[in-house]
């Protein structure tokens, strides 16, 4: 909502506050002023000129040489506008004048001819092109004939004005009008509101003698008022009206349309003007549209109507889409002599659905959608009639053609001062509350220490006690509210076990050197199930913004890998990222099965200590080690089981198993996948945090620090390459019994000295007895058992 302060002053005394100060007061009281726009900013020395003569420039087709009377002299000015002509009153920026954007006008020569200034378009005065009347959109603006030569354009035509741009919240539909803003300002400044005085002379003839009205849909249209005005002259509106409309962000057209728009801005009540003769039938019938009925709206679009659409008809065919936009077939034009002014109350739901259905929003529909003031419908029609009489020379027919079943009772809200104070934590005096309600012009009775408030119909946002609390508080001043803390019982607060574990995971991963990434949940359809542990049916948006963000992800890895590529493409070759976030799986329920996952992706060097000659590229075992460390942080045992997944190296992929359940996957990207993603060796893993955290961790109990020494024996084996070290380790553990405390691989050799298809693996076995110092003989006995078991399994001892 754009509010011209000059216009606002018609209704309320703004106490000559500086615009910025007024804006700040309005903001602090609840309606945010987004901008304070000085319409004359950067303008000076701009006067009314009279074009005495106008001739073609001998050297340039598109230029005219004008002799312009600017009051103190007649100056030659060169003008390039196509619509310049002798006899016009025009806007002249004289030498020394300033125009918006810091432009300064100087005496100049144009193709050899002197130019003493510039004849201006409205755009050159800083008015947006889309607001400039169409007739002047491509050229200079022509002032009315009575403009005084040499007088100051800025002050005489209301450009010395400031506009407040209000950012209205949906509840404050009341402030979508100048009068609504005036009530707000009056309440803030403790002033009175001056309503427009409506007087005009009526003709003898009754409006109802020319126009009949039927309303077939009273639920959607409980009030319809029509005025008939004849003998009007359709022409340009006076300058002040055009300026006010432009200040309000509305483009002037002709006096009839401008008046309906002016009253819309003034009262917040949408009006529509029909050309009476084009109605043809002298009848208006409001009804719902019939199947396949068509209308061409004023924007030139032909629209197919549906049964839900409320339309205004001439009894036969639609002439307007009610509350949204008029129809071309009854549009006011230069030839119009009689108009019907419609002022109606349409139910917001009906207008909202029609407006949405046709993708058509107008100043009218946006007000109807939020609800207009039922008590302004008829006054707005009267106001329009008055202005048509005054500004279009019209003759207003007697009376109003009216259908009225609209209830317009004031909402009564009863609230106690104690309630208000206890909600606010304040001690506002009763008189102060009454004073604020009076300033708002809410009729208030005080009975038995209760405030009985009749809320004016313009404030439909005030429905319950809490709404009154807000009104009192905002005008009393939020700065006056004290700062306290809740006086409730102390609560322990804290994180849930799940949340605590998530922090453990995060801090651990950051501690070992991973950076936390965050990627988008929405992805392209083709990558939604890539790397998914448990792929399900896709979940797609009804109306995505793009294909790239159309489907909910089922794995974190595709986007995490995109982030890795983003970095390597920028010459950061070593990247190690992790992310925790939800994946979205179709479940039993209509809601999805959202599961929090952890994903890691790493590439490049893991150790890079170049000058000491230590370099270690990331590989499967770097990431495996990180997961093993994570498992021990969480006190769980994760086993690695050979696995496979699209996009991963078939020989370098494992499932992460927890209590026999597959909770994740680790692997090296498949060379094809790496190439497609423009990556070098990249290791990834993804697991379900939900599953990882599923079991409560055991209480931590300390184990006694060993009092007796342990004894270590090594065994080196030659094995077939396909035998996994893990299976040998299991065999050793079972043969070693309870004295065997630990088994570690300490050497792996696959080389020339071995038979083809063989490898040598060396294990280090630690024996320990918590009760006593083991003797050599005892250890030897157990160790020989182990060796025997290994030999029996087919392993060959390496000498």
């Amino acid at each position, binding site marked *: 909502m754009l509010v011209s302060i000059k216009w606002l002053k018609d209704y309320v005394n703004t106490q000559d506050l500086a615009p910025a100060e007024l804006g700040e007061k309005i903001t*602090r009281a*609840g309606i945010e002023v987004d901008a304070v726009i000085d319409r004359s900013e950067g303008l000076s020395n701009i006067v009314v000129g009279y074009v005495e003569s106008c001739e073609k420039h001998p050297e340039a087709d598109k230029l005219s040489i004008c002799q312009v009377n600017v009051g103190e002299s007649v100056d030659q000015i060169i003008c390039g506008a196509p619509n310049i002509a002798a006899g016009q009153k025009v806007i002249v920026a004289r030498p020394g004048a300033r125009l918006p954007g810091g432009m300064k006008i100087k005496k100049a020569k144009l193709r050899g001819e002197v130019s003493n200034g510039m004849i201006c378009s409205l755009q050159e005065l800083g008015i947006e092109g889309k607001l400039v009347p169409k007739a002047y959109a491509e050229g200079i603006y022509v002032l009315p004939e009575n403009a005084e030569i040499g007088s100051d354009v800025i002050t005489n035509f209301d450009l010395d004005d400031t506009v407040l741009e209000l950012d209205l*919240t*949906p509840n*404050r539909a009341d402030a979508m009008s100048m009068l609504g803003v005036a009530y707000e300002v009056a309440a803030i400044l403790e002033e009175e509101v001056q309503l427009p005085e409506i007087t005009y002379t009526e003709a003898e003839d009754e409006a109802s003698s020319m126009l009949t009205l039927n309303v077939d849909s009273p639920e959607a249209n409980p009030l319809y008022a029509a005025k008939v005005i004849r003998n009007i002259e359709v022409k340009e509106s006076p300058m002040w009206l055009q300026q006010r409309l432009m200040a309000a962000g509305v483009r002037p057209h002709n006096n009839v349309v401008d008046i309906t728009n002016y009253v819309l801005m003034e009262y917040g009540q949408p009006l529509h003007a029909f050309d009476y003769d084009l109605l043809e039938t002298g009848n208006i019938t409001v009804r719902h549209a019939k199947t396949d009925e068509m209308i061409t709206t004023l924007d030139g679009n032909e629209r197919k109507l549906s049964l839900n659409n409320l339309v205004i008809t001439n009894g036969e065919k639609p002439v307007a889409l009610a509350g949204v936009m008029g129809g071309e077939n009854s549009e006011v034009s230069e030839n119009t002599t009689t108009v019907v002014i419609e002022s109606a109350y349409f139910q917001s739901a009906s207008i*909202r659905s029609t407006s949405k259905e046709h993708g058509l929003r107008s100043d009218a529909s946006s007000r109807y959608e*939020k609800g207009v003031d039922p008590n302004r419908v008829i006054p707005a029609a009267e106001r329009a009639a008055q202005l048509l009489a005054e500004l279009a020379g019209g003759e207003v027919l007697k009376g109003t053609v009216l259908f009225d079943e609209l209830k317009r009772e004031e909402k009564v809200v009863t609230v106690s001062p104690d309630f208000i104070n*206890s*909600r*606010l*934590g304040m001690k506002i005096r009763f008189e102060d509350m009454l004073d604020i309600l009076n300033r708002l012009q809410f009729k208030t009775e005080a009975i038995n220490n209760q405030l009985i408030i009749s809320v004016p119909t313009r404030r439909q946002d005030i429905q319950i006690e*809490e709404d009154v*609390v*807000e009104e009192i*508080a*905002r005008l009393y001043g*939020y*700065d006056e*509210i*004290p*700062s*306290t803390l*809740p006086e*409730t*019982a102390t*609560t322990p*607060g*804290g*994180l*849930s076990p799940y949340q605590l574990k998530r922090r453990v995971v*995060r801090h651990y*991963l*950051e*501690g*070992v*050197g991973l*950076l*936390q990434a*965050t990627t988008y*949940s*929405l992805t392209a359809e083709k990558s939604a199930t890539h790397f998914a542990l448990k792929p399900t049916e896709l*979940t*797609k948006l*009804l*109306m995505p*913004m793009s294909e790239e963000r159309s489907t909910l992800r089922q794995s974190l890895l595709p986007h995490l890998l995109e982030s890795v590529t*983003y*970095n390597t493409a920028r010459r950061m070759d070593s990247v*190690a990222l992790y992310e925790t*976030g939800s994946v*979205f799986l179709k479940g039993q329920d*209509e*809601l*999805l099965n*959202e599961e929090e996952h952890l994903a890691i992706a790493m590439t490049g060097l*893991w*150790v*890079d*200590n170049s*000058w000491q000659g230590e370099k270690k590229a990331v590989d499967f075992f770097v990431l495996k080690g990180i997961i093993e460390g994570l498992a021990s942080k969480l006190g769980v045992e994760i086993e690695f089981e050979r696995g496979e997944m699209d996009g991963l190296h078939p020989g370098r992929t494992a499932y992460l198993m927890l209590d026999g359940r597959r909770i994740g996957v680790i692997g090296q990207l498949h060379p094809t996948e790496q190439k497609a993603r423009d990556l070098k060796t990249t290791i990834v893993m993804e697991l379900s945090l939900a599953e990882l955290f599923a079991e409560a961790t055991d209480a931590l109990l300390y184990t006694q620090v060993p009092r007796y020494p342990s004894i270590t024996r090594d065994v080196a084996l030659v094995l077939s390459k396909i035998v996994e070290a893990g299976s040998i380790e299991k065999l050793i553990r079972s043969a070693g019994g309870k004295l065997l405390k630990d088994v570690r691989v300490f050497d792996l050799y696959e080389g020339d000295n071995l038979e083809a298809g063989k490898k040598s693996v060396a294990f280090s076995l630690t024996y320990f007895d918590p009760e006593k110092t083991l003797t050599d003989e005892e250890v030897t006995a157990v160790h020989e058992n182990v060796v025997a078991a290994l030999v029996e399994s087919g392993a060959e001892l390496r000498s």
Partner: protein
Amino acid sequence: METQLNELKSQALEQIAAATNVKELNAVRVAYLGKKGPITDLLKGMGKLPAEERPKMGALVNVVREEVTTRLEERMAILEEQAINEKLQSETIDITLPGRPVKTGNAHPLTRVIEEIEDLFISMGYEVEEGPEVEKDYYNFEALNLPKGHPARDMQDTFYISEEILLRTHTSPVQARTMEAKGGEPIKIICPGKVYRRDNDDATHSHQFTQIEGLVIGEDIRMSDLKGTLSVFAKKMFGDDREIRLRPSFFPFTEPSVEMDISCFKCGGDGCNVCKKTGWIEILGAGMVHPNVLEMAGYDSKRLTGFAFGMGPERIAMLKYGIEDIRHFYTNDVRFLSQFERTEV
């Protein structure tokens, strides 16, 4: 023999003094004091002396031996120290060479902000509640006093999955769910999480972003409690000398509703580019829980009241760290992410 002894002594002392390292000195020791050395020989030869001269000569030999020994030890100490010094000298390293790099990772800046806010409210007795990102229309809108067709639904452009299922547009549905689950009991929670809106991504908009909301419900919860709580938050988060100011606003789920500004932490309120010359920075929205919201979740709004507040970690991080483009949070450029490593304490 005495002359012989003195000569021996001066010879030994001369050689001790001449020794330049431990090895040479040890050779001197062996030469003079060893089992085959001249002093031992002299002691052995004493048997040939007359009995009355033996004690005198014995004492004399001992004196010489002790003196040689003492001088030798003194010299040894000097040479040993010299040897250590030489060794240390040779072991000197260039301490300006870089240390062995230790891998350090860190949290995403949004996590950092969220965790800081969580911890602050946990210390005030709040619990952390989370909920689904794919939500029912009911919890996202209807339970929050936003029935179908409510004009305020236009404020949020929503990604729908079906008529009734959507990507949550705020974390408020977690409040609605918690209220429903608590069945009329007091609540003190903070709800962080990801939210989604139908926006084109640009420097200030992101179709995915994060929110953190708080909700307190109890007996006699007042608007002054909201102001006090937000004031504690502002001071902890943005500095002890922060002032807060509340401005009336509108949210369908609160009444009264406010927006909170803090005095600019960059200029202190004088006006600068961070606060757009106003001295104030808008940080969050808040209000008293709307009675319709309480009633819909089964609370008696006459008996229990509450306040709620909500803020955007992206905005807070952008203000705090001077980040100019919201897309940085989702690009995962390591040159961006790794800047949020160090502590600010």
